[in-house]
């Protein structure tokens, strides 16, 4: 089989979802992944991609609060759902404590994996405000980073968690 399109283009569907709290209405074809919708239709290029096959974790976003890989979720499957990307983490000019800590401690080197780590970590802290190293290792095991060796990322999460718990 070498016809790469397989079938003629089916009609577009109108997708309604919330992205970073904003209502979105966008006509898309069913085969468009959430990653493509975010980056190409909504120009939210903060969400990155490293494989598009579920093998790297770079494209992680939160759908209804749960971290998933946007490269393997269809846009149309997010009908009525709420999506959070890295662009939605800061509150205006005020960074999320995780963002602040990542910047402060050098947890973002090239920064390419960073959005995926931030969102995965955010959900982790929602579940567990004081995660141990072991918990972090397990929770972040689906995100690859080639620059940092993860250690600065753990330190940043610990710092952010402490600040969020109100520990100085």
């Amino acid at each position: 089989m070498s016809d790469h399109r397989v079938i003629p283009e089916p009609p577009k569907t109108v997708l309604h979802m919330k992205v970073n709290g904003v209502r979105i209405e966008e006509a898309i074809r069913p085969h468009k992944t959430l990653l493509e919708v975010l980056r190409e239709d909504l120009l939210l290029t903060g969400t990155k991609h490293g494989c598009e096959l579920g093998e790297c974790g770079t494209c992680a976003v939160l759908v209804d609060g749960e971290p998933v890989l946007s490269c393997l979720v269809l846009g149309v499957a997010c009908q009525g759902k709420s999506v959070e990307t890295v662009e939605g983490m800061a509150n205006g000019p005020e960074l999320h404590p995780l963002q602040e800590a990542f910047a402060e401690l050098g947890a973002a080197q090239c920064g390419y994996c960073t959005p995926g780590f931030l969102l995965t970590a955010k959900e982790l802290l929602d579940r567990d405000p004081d995660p141990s190293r072991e918990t972090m290792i397990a929770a972040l095991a689906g995100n690859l980073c080639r620059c940092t060796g993860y250690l600065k990322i753990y330190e940043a999460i610990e710092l952010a968690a402490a600040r969020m718990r109100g520990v100085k």
Partner: protein
Amino acid sequence: MLRLPNFHYHVPATVAEAVALKAEHGPHASYVAGGTDLYPNMKRRQQEPHHVIQISQLRELHEVRDEGGHVRVGAGLTLTAVHQHERIARDYHALAEAAESVATPLLRNMGTLGGNLCLDTRCNYYDQSYEWRKGINFCMKKDGDICWVAKSSPKCLAVSSTDTAPVAVALGAAIEVTSAKGETRRIPAGDFFRNDGIDYMKKEHDELVTSIHLPAPNGWRSSYMKLRRRGSFDFPVLGVAVFVKFANAKGAAAKDAPVEEARVVLGAVFSEPTIVHGAADALVGRPLTKESIEDAAEAAFKIAKPMDNTDYLLSYRKEMVMPFTKRALLKVM
């Protein structure tokens, strides 16, 4: 950016609607639950359904119900939900272990139990892009007519790479399916699979997996061991699931009690999870000891015939059958 091909997308409201759609479009349609197997395969043009039928929204597939001791687990539960489920984690430890060992936390948030049981078989001549496969002139599983793993093989030797299936077989679970005719049947997990890399499930194409039935917990023990290079991401290249029931039942200390029933199941060395009958023979009727475990592991080692189509050398995967079987059995001792 690697992209999906075009397809028609359906969101049925009920199981009946879903199976009807599948029957209507026949081999050109695929169910999709989490999509973590189907979509990568579609992006690489290993699978090219014209119709994709979403099933993860079906309420019926998300229930965990106690049915008089048995537990019925909906096929639509995500793997995260499976391993975090209190009842499953307590009574079906091996299943929770297997689910938790799948892929990555992010993929487990998406991937489902049903999708895991129906996971396409894998082979590193096949899990490649269209262009790559063209470089080897394709193989019989898709677009070609020869098996590059064993050129004389009349059938595809792609590997059953699901983590939960060997456990389901070991536990003696049953897989419930519903067909377009409206029939629902329970297939023992041990009869659900076929040792054929292409036609690896015995269910009919329109049959939807709705749930898996786990036997009542009455003292038996189970465990799962998985060989892979990294602690995350990687598929099993050898899985060992064991189930051991002692004669004195009721979970009493198993010491000295003879084994009444046992199953040792190998995953990821054939195109289906495979019961090692010799291992059961070695275990049943004797207390579980170092010696009986050694004999069972030996039996598993004898039958395992991994091929050169996954990570790790096949000789190494074969060698590891011994220590992995032993460790899986030691865990239930």
